[in-house]
C-alpha cells in the first residue's frame, strides 16, 4: 500500500507568550514568562494561591482581527488558533478544501459547563443552560464557523490531547482516507483544572522548573495550538508552503497509575522508539527533544529515564527544550503548542531554551541538556507527551526534503 507523506502547511497559536506564532516564538527564544496570580477564583486555597499562566494581552486584538468573539473559553481559543492556521496555510476562503477537511481537537473535558451551576439549574431551564455546551455542539460550531464538513472529533485525554489529535490526523492522511486535516489542542484556564492539581499537590510553589533538582510541580496555563496537515501531493498541487513534515507518531498507554507515570519510563521510551522507528530516525538524527517536562518529580524522572533508554550515551548532548518552563502547562493545548514550536524551530533553525532550571538532578541516569545548546542544525524534533490515565503520545517532526 502506498503511504502518503504528511506535511504541516499551517500553524496557529493562542498562548501566554503571544496569540500569534511569531510573537510567541520570539518570546520563547528570549526566555520570557507571563506568570501571574489567579484571577476571579471563588475558592480558598490554603490562603496561598500559586502562579498561573493566562493568555497574553494581544488576545483581544487577535480576536478582532479574525472576527472571533472575545471570550476566555475553549471555543474562542480554538477558533482563533484554527483561523490563524488556515490563514498561514493560505486556505482562507477556500470553501471546497476546507469542507473536505476533518477536525481533531485534543482537550481535557468534552463539555464546558460549570458543574455546580449545572446541578443547581432548575430542570425547566436546563435545556437553555446547556445550549452550546454539549461536546457535539461545541465541535460542530467550531467546524461550521471554519467551514469544515468532514469528520469532527475531540480527544478529551487532557495533556497528550494535541499529539493524539495530530497522530490521528496523520494516520488518516497517511492511508489516504483524507487529504487534509486540522489538528490541535485547546484548554482554557479554569478553577476546576487548578483545583484538581491543587488537591493532588502538583502545583509548584514558585514556577515550573523542568528537570531541576528543586522542581516541585506545574504552573497551570491555557491556550490553543492548531496545525493544518496535508498529504504532500495535496500540498504540492496547491503550491502550499511546507513548514515541516510529520514523519512518525505513536499513541499508547503505560497502564501504571491514573495520575503518576511509571518512573522507569519503560512504556514512555517504547512510545518514543515506535515514533522514531516509523520516521526512520536513529537517535543521532534527533536535533532536539520537546519533552512533556511538566516540572513534577514523577514526570521528569520518568522522562529522564526514558530519554536515557533511547539515547544512551548521546542523551547528555541532545538539547531538551522544555517550554512549559515559560508557557506553563496548557493542559490539552500543551502538546499542540509544542508542535507549533517544533514547526517554528525547524523553519527557523532556532531552539527555545528551558528556563528556571539551573540545578541538575543527580538521580537522573544522565545529565539533561536544558540550555546552552550551541550550534544545532534543526532537522528532526521528537515531541513527547503524557497524560492522566497513562496515555502517552509521541510525534517526530522533521524538516521537509
Amino acid at each position, binding site marked *: 500500500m502506498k503511504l502518503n507523506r504528511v506535511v504541516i502547511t499551517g500553524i496557529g497559536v493562542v498562548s501566554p507568550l503571544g496569540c500569534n506564532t511569531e510573537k510567541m516564538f520570539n518570546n520563547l527564544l528570549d526566555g520570557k514568562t507571563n506568570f501571574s496570580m489567579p484571577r476571579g477564583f471563588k*475558592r*480558598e*486555597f*490554603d490562603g496561598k494561591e500559586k502562579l498561573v499562566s493566562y493568555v497574553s494581552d494581544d488576545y483581544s486584538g487577535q480576536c478582532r482581527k479574525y472576527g472571533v468573539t472575545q471570550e476566555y473559553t475553549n471555543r474562542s481559543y480554538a477558533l482563533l488558533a484554527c483561523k490563524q492556521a488556515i490563514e498561514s496555510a493560505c486556505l482562507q476562503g477556500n470553501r471546497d478544501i476546507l469542507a473536505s477537511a476533518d477536525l481533531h481537537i485534543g482537550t*481535557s*473535558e*468534552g*463539555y464546558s459547563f460549570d*458543574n*455546580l451551576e*449545572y*446541578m443547581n*439549574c432548575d*430542570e425547566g431551564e*436546563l*435545556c437553555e443552560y446547556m445550549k452550546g455546551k*454539549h*461536546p*457535539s*455542539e461545541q*465541535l*460542530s460550531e467550531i467546524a*461550521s464557523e471554519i467551514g469544515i*464538513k*468532514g*469528520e*469532527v*472529533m*475531540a*480527544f*478529551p*485525554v*487532557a495533556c497528550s490531547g494535541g499529539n*493524539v489529535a495530530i497522530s*490521528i490526523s496523520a*494516520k*488518516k492522511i497517511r*492511508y489516504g*482516507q483524507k487529504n487534509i486535516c486540522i489538528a490541535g489542542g485547546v484548554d482554557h484556564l479554569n478553577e*476546576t483544572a487548578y*483545583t*484538581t492539581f*491543587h*488537591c*493532588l499537590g502538583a502545583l509548584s510553589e514558585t514556577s515550573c522548573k523542568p528537570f531541576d533538582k528543586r522542581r516541585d510541580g506545574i504552573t497551570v496555563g491555557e491556550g490553543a495550538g492548531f496545525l493544518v496537515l496535508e498529504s504532500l501531493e495535496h500540498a504540492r498541487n496547491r503550491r502550499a508552503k511546507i513548514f515541516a513534515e510529520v514523519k512518525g507518531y*505513536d*499513541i*499508547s*498507554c*503505560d*497502564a501504571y*497509575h*491514573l*495520575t503518576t507515570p511509571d518512573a522507569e519510563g519503560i512504556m514512555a521510551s517504547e512510545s518514543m522508539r*515506535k515514533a522514531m522507528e516509523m520516521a526512520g530516525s536513529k537517535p543521532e538524527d534527533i536535533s532536539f527533544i520537546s519533552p512533556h517536562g511538566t516540572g513534577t518529580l514523577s514526570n521528569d524522572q520518568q522522562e529522564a529515564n526514558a530519554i536515557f533508554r533511547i539515547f544512551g550515551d548521546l542523551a547528555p548532548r541532545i538539547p531538551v527544550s522544555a517550554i512549559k518552563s515559560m508557557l506553563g502547562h496548557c493542559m490539552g493545548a500543551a502538546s499542540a503548542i509544542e508542535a507549533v514550536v517544533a514547526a517554528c524551530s525547524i523553519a527557523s533553525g532556532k531552539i527555545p531554551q528551558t528556563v528556571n532550571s539551573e540545578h541538575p538532578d543527580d538521580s537522573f541516569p544522565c545529565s539533561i541538556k536544558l540550555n546552552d545548546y550551541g550550534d544545532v542544525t534543526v532537522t528532526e524534533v521528537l515531541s513527547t507527551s503524557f*497524560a*492522566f*490515565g*497513562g*496515555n502517552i503520545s509521541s510525534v517526530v517532526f522533521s524538516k521537509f526534503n
Partner: protein
Amino acid sequence: MSIYIDDVLTFSCMSADPGESEMGIKHLKGKGLRYVPRTIRMVQVVTGEMIERNGLADNKGRIGLYNTNDVCSLEAGTDFDKELEQFGTRFANPMKVPYTINGAMAGWLAIRNGLKNVCLTVSSGRCGVFSALNIASLDFLDGITDYAIILGAHFAGEAYKRYNILSAMKDEVAAGILVSREKTSKSFVEITDCRTAVYDKPLLNRILNEEPTIKIFDSDIHLPYCYNDNVFTYEADSLQMSFFMMLIGCLGNAGIGLHNNEYKYVVTDSDKLMGWAKFKILR
C-alpha cells in the same frame, strides 16, 4: 478497509452494585475499588468479560481500547465539586480527584486489565461509536493492534439524568463491541465503511437513499425512532451504541436481510453531527 465484529456485550445491573452481579463478581475482585465510580466499574465488567470470553488474556498487548462516552466523568466531577463547596479545598478527598477527569475511565480500564496499547476517549457526541470504529481501523492499518474494544455507556446517576433530560431512555447500561483486524471464526459482522461528519442535510439524504438499505422482517426487533422501513435513523439518543449492537446482534443471529445481507445504520446527533456505518452479516 473492512473490519470485523467478533463480539457484542451489554451489562446492566439495575440499581444494584455492579460488583454483586455474576459477571461483576468475576471482574471487580480485589482491592483498590473503593473510590472507583460506579460508571467505571460497570464498564470494567464489559471489558473484563470481553477479554476473558474471547480468549484474549494472552494477547493484551495487541488490544486497543476506545471509550466513546464523552461525559463519563460528569457524575464524579459534580460530586467532587459539591464536596469542595461543602468542605473546602483543604478537606476534599484527593482520592476522588483522578475520576473527575474524562480520560480516567479509559486509563483505569487499561490499568485494571493490563492494556498497554492505544487507550483513547473519543468524543463526537452520539456518533462516537462510528468515530471509534474508524480510528480502530486506522490502528489496524498501522499494525499496532489486532483487536479493538469499543465501549459506550448510558448512566442513570443524578448528573447524567440531567444531561440526558430529553432522552426517552432511562435505563443504565454499559456496552462493548470487540472488533478484529482480520476475519476470525467468531466474526459475524463485516463493517465496510464507518464515518462521521458535520450534519449536512444533502449529504444525509444521499447516504439515506444510496444502497444498501435494510428492510425489517422480524417485528421482534424493537427499535424505536425508526423513521421509515428502509433505513434506520436515530435522533438524539444516548443509547445509540447499544441500539447499534442490538441491531447487529439480532440481524447477525437471525440472518435477516434484504440483498446480500448488506445493511446501513445512520445516526444523527440533532442537527450537529451525523454518523453512519455500512456492514454485512457474515452468518
